[in-house]
């Protein structure tokens, strides 16, 4: 085993502190430079254009070139339908998983006729709450969601219930949800709140 100290650890403590401080300044400067280089709307538009390409690519892979059906659950239709309804008309062609009209039709069908719960299945409203928590809080994994649900009053809920609901509704694990970072909507809101305290938000 190599017990020799690295160059950095051989430096006196004050020097190391100086280096760390320098690195912090650099991180802060780079973050601000990147963020303020362009208008926020232009950045968001570019991200959306990229996401369309990525979604189409994934759709092609999942459906083997548009020859197989995707397994979209009623709760997925609820999430997508609610967001699609707010989308302006000019962006309706950006929907990849289905045609816009089909998506809205199926969403409304499930709103009027919610699926009947099966034996020992997690109730529908609990399922929706778990999915909403996972989507709104990308950093929350299933244990965190479980404790949050217990705080709200669902004391009988177990870890495997949360995991099975997330798995069934195609919600990836927290590490994968965090890959795309915070959405622009949340980012702008958090930035305005946290700027007075000088917190870095990425």
């Amino acid at each position: 085993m190599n017990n020799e100290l690295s160059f950095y650890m051989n430096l006196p403590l004050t020097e190391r502190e100086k280096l760390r401080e320098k690195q912090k300044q650099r991180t802060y400067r780079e973050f601000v430079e990147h963020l303020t280089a362009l208008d926020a709307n232009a950045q968001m538009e570019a991200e959306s254009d990229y996401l369309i390409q990525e979604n189409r690519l994934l759709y092609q892979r999942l459906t083997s070139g548009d020859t197989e059906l995707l397994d979209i659950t009623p709760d997925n239709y609820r999430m997508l339908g609610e967001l699609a309804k707010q989308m302006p008309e000019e962006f309706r062609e950006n929907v990849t998983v289905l045609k816009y009209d089909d998506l809205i039709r199926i969403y409304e069908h499930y709103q009027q006729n919610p699926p009947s719960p099966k034996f020992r299945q997690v109730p529908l409203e609990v399922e929706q709450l778990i999915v909403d928590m996972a989507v709104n809080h990308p950093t929350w994994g299933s244990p965190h969601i479980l404790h949050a649900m217990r705080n709200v009053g669902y004391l009988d809920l177990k870890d495997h219930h949360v995991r099975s609901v997330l798995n069934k509704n195609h919600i990836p694990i927290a590490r994968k949800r965090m890959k795309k970072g915070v959405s622009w909507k949340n980012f702008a809101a958090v930035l305005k709140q946290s700027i007075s305290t000088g917190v870095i938000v990425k």
Partner: protein
Amino acid sequence: MNSVSKKSFLKNPYKKWYRKLREFSDNVELDQKSVARNEFLRTENMLLWGMFSKNNEYLRLLAHEKEQLALSASQMHGRTQVSASLLSPAQIIKYTRSAEGKKYVSLFPRKPRVAKLPIVHLEAIIRSITEEHPSWKKQQIYNEVRKYFPEVPAFRVYDILYDIGFWDG
């Protein structure tokens, strides 16, 4: 006396950048239409990734897919520049250039490289050639195809010709 005490204060190194960030955050006004679009696309993307990760597969991108992604990824600047894309910054540069048919970016005038077509279009191009020139032999067709796909082997072209029922032998 006053000037000495003023000099003894340390300059805050964050001040300039903090002011810049503050100005940005005060003036940031997101277009609600674009926000709705962005939110939908992000959710759709998350669900598609959720479906894809169930198969426990590694997403291997083909060259033409990388080019397709790189063109839109190259337009991304700012906060999401690195994190949002499937490609690394070096790949974005490489495949954006290859999509444009460039190998280098030079100040000297150069003959631009011919943009390579993705191999998925091979069959479609062979079909169009056979429809346009029904009297051509397979060798002639192969020579024509090589203009679009310089590296394609002859047997692949002949196999496709056989499959589509064009067989001169």
